[in-house]
């Protein structure tokens, strides 16, 4: 069985994603070098840049996704709100679940505690992906769901679908 990073790349390719906009972090650390290799990869310095980039790519007819830490929702909240509430522009966000059960770093707990209230407040539809065999089909469905409903969709990778915390 492939690892989570290989399966995310496989899922993105099968879903015909061409552009990935990202701010890398540690819980999907095996993924980022592969994204650079396989996709038109746009790296930002602040998650607030990401929603606009994928919105622009959508208008250009290219499938694009955001990959960032779940704490990035807090930085990206205003652009997401403007683009989705103001214009109903669809977007797909892929995030690891930093702060999930067994989190070993103290500062990561707040990432999880704020994540669901932020997703709800921003009216982002979200699903948790915890098993490796769920990764590939979830990505295609997320892109389909976002376009059909003209909404933002988040996939939150936990369990075996991201790096395992050292002491878990």
């Amino acid at each position, binding site marked *: 069985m492939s690892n989570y990073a290989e399966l995310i790349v496989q899922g993105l390719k099968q879903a015909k994603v*061409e*552009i990935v*906009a990202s701010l890398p972090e540690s819980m999907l650390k095996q993924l980022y070098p592969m994204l650079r290799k396989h996709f*038109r990869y*746009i*790296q*930002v*310095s*602040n998650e*607030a*840049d*990401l*929603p*606009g*980039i*994928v*919105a*622009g*790519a*959508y*208008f*250009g*007819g*290219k499938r*694009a996704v955001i990959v960032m830490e779940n704490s990035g929702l807090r930085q990206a909240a*205003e*652009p997401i709100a*403007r*683009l989705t509430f*103001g*214009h*109903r*522009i669809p977007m797909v966000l892929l995030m690891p679940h930093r702060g999930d059960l067994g989190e070993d770093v103290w500062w990561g707990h707040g990432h999880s505690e704020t994540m669901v209230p932020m997703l709800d407040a921003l009216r982002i539809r979200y699903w948790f992906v915890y098993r490796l065999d769920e990764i590939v089909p979830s990505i295609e469905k997320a892109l389909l769901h976002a*376009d*059909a409903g*003209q909404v933002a969709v988040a996939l939150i990778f936990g369990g075996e679908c991201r790096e395992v915390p050292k002491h878990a």
Partner: protein
Amino acid sequence: MHRIDVVRALAELVTPEDLFVCAHGGLRNDWWNSRPGGVDNTCFLTGMNTVSATALGLAVALPHRRVTALETDGSVLMSASTLCTLGNERPPNLSIVVFDNTVYESIGGLPTATSGRTDLAKMAEGAGCSNCFTVTDLDTFARHAKKVLTDGEFGFIVAKTAKAAAHRWPKDKQKHTDGVEEKYRFLRYVEQLEKIRIHHVVEIGG
């Protein structure tokens, strides 16, 4: 230099087949009335911090298409980190034109940071952007705009415009679309222009 004159000078240099992303504020009515062909070639956004990022995504998605972001000082200041992304990507088909009137016009003219020590062209240059210019008169604007639109390189022009000099548009000339209608109009225009399907609508039995 009045903003409406700069907008009209820009409109003379572009075509209906170019694509634009336009910032919030008084600029919207100026461009709505000046955009080439009067067609839906412009993505009007409400977010002050989403304009250049959206133009970047569009330019990367359509590398053969000329894309111009119509920015404001307030919007660029709110999304300063985007300058670093632009500076490292520099899509050759993307130009950024910042209409810098140094004030928050729609709230009565309180100063932005560019009325103090902040220089947007220097910020862009320091972030890695190429062809960064500040212009203060129409002839210089037209010369630099023509260059960045035709040289096949990324460009960033800051047009310093007069404060408290917004053009007053009569009601029937003001933009009358909301954000959702604007999205669909722009999306369908790009579909027609590029001969592609962006938004797939599925009906039962279809």
